């Protein structure tokens, strides 16, 4: 471990340092509120974001004996995670202010889990994948259960923990099988051995290993049939945490999935494509159809998260392994947009919630535009973006991903995905109808928090800005995809 190597992972080190500082501040300088801790956390997140830029220079450096790789791919995700972290800390501060008990652990866990996400996106070794996935997951398990006096939050955390532990066991077993059959856990060596080994292609144990790894990662991205936890956990966890999970955990898990697929190209894709295609179609169709019937915004967003996992899997299927891969670029763009719109949408729930209990019934949002025109506008932007309506970032995300799918000649799959998007538009736009065209009922929600509306506003404005000028984010995504092409 040299200083040069450590300088490449500066973003992760800043976040870990931030977590430790917040933890010690809370222990030795206890205060009644924890607003100052949110500022300290934000400072460390900004430092992490500033230092993540270094990786965007066209370098691709293997670190710590091949365990991590510092490249534009990892840096792209590091920037996404910093933005997710900042918005989560800011919405979390609003949420914590309303609680009767202080829970400064929120910030510590967000910082550590974000560090885990960054590690996951840069991992090039299965051992490192497992450790960083756990680092992220353990933080998120506790975050989901952070509200001690709410039985729903406790249930969400417990459910996520038990099922997540199962998924980790699957992942670990898969890693063991792959190590057993190939003798390595490093992506690059693994890729090389898969390339020149005919015996491996027929080895059932080897493919069982890959299957188990896909199950483990599929759980984290809420892929059907490993999605059962999603609605309960998203609905039970506090809204800022649910947004953090939807945006961050999904992006991190897809980052490692994309890297793995690149590693195993083209053998892995040949073998896994039919299976992944089945998963993709079932995932998006199931998510969208069940989301139609939801009357609670958080549950609806949970099913929408399942559907979006399906769209992203469609993109994964289109990864070609060429130097300028359109699908990888599209997935990166999509994940950036997806993170913003989810945090914005869950942020609206934080905005209208009260000290006692969270409020996320769709009926309560009726006529919100009359009282809170700005927040309603921001939420509407997020909904349009989730539906994929131009000129929002969500439109370009779908455009690039589905475009790459068509380029690969999978027109049928693209049509299914587009039909799904049309179905999804119904339930996203229904929220907009509630906001603008319904009379507010007696229990209509009112919000009062400036900080929450500002956070939603930042997400919505970024969505519009990326929607109008997608080229800058697309260029970053292109660099990220090109970094993978150079490695494998």
């Amino acid at each position, binding site marked *: *471990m040299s200083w040069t190597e450590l300088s490449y992972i500066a973003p992760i080190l800043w976040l*870990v340092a931030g977590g430790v500082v917040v*933890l010690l501040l*809370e*222990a030795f300088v*206890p205060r*009644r509120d924890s607003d100052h801790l949110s500022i300290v956390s934000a400072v460390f997140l900004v430092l992490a974001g500033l230092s993540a830029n270094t990786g965007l220079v066209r370098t691709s450096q293997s*670190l*710590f*004996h091949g*365990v*991590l790789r510092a490249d534009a791919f990892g840096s792209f995700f590091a920037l996404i995670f910093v933005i997710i972290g900042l918005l989560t800390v800011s919405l979390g501060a609003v949420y914590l202010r309303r609680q*009767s*008990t*202080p*829970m400064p*652990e929120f910030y*510590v*866990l967000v910082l*550590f*889990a974000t*560090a*885990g996400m960054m*590690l996951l996106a840069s991992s090039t*070794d299965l*051992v*490192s994948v497992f*450790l*960083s996935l*756990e*680092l992220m997951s*353990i*933080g998120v*398990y*506790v975050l989901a*259960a*952070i509200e*001690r*006096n709410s039985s729903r939050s406790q249930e969400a*955390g417990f459910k996520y923990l038990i099922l997540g532990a199962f998924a980790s066991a699957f992942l670990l077993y898969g890693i063991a099988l792959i190590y057993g059959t190939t003798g390595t856990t490093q992506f690059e060596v693994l890729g090389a051995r898969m390339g020149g080994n005919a015996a491996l292609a027929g080895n059932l144990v080897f493919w069982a290993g890959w299957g188990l790894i896909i199950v483990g990662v599929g759980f984290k991205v809420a892929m059907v049939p490993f999605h059962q936890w999603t609605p309960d956990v998203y609905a039970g966890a506090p809204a800022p945490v649910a947004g953090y999970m939807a945006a961050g955990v999904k992006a991190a898990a897809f980052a490692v999935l994309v890297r793995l697929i690149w590693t195993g190209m083209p053998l892995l894709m040949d073998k896994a494509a039919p299976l992944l295609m089945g998963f993709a179609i079932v995932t998006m169709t199931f998510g969208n159809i069940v989301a139609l019937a939801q009357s609670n915004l958080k549950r609806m967003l949970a099913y929408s998260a399942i559907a979006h996992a399906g769209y992203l899997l469609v993109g994964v299927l289109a990864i070609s392994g060429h130097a300028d891969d359109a699908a990888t670029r599209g997935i990166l763009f999509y994940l950036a947009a997806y993170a913003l719109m989810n945090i914005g949408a869950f942020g609206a729930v934080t905005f209208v919630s009260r000290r006692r209990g969270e409020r996320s019934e769709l009926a309560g949002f009726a006529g919100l535009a009359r009282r809170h025109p700005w927040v309603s506008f921001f939420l509407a932007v997020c909904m349009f973006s989730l539906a994929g309506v131009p000129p929002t970032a969500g439109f370009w995300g779908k455009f690039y991903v589905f475009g790459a799918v068509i380029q690969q000649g999978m027109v049928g799959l693209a049509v299914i995905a587009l039909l799904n998007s049309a179905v999804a538009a119904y339930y996203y736009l229904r929220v907009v109808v509630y906001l603008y065209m319904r009379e507010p009922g007696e229990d209509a929600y009112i919000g009062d928090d400036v900080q929450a509306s500002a956070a939603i506003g930042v997400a919505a404005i970024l969505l519009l800005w990326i929607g109008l000028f997608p080229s800058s984010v697309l260029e970053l995504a292109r660099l990220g995809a090109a970094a993978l092409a150079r490695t494998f």
Partner: protein
Amino acid sequence: MEALFFYLFGGLAVITALVTITRRDAVTSAFWLIACFLNVAALFAMLSAQFIAVMQILIYAGAIMVFFLFVTMFLGEPRRVRLNRGRAIPLISTVTVLLLAYLLMRITNTQHRGFPSISDSYGSVAMVSRKLLVDYVFLFEVTGLLLLVAVIGAVYVARKPRTGVGEGEGHV
């Protein structure tokens, strides 16, 4: 000489395992299981697998048994815990015996050819520490971080919810 020790530790391992499963009291069983693990560790040590021998003691005889005992004691009244001797037992024992017979058959029938030879230092303390502290030192550190997060999470979840802000509850 080696054969003598092999039969000594092997025999003790089998005997202690038998004693473990025939005790009616869970705590007594647990202690006999520790004795069994120690004998298995000795067998590993005789195979020059130092690392596995040490891990056998540290993790199985140490950590996992402490965990077992804790759980047994938390469940309360350990003396009264009667191990279940339900109707499934004959079925389970039949399956176990069949599995054992199958394994023994496979082991005795295997032609011992072409086992890859492993170097003498394989599994030695020096080799394990080189892997752990040179090749995988970064992940070693990440594991430390992971444990820290797990401890923070466990303490947060296990502790009684702090009641009011103004009630002056101590910090953890």
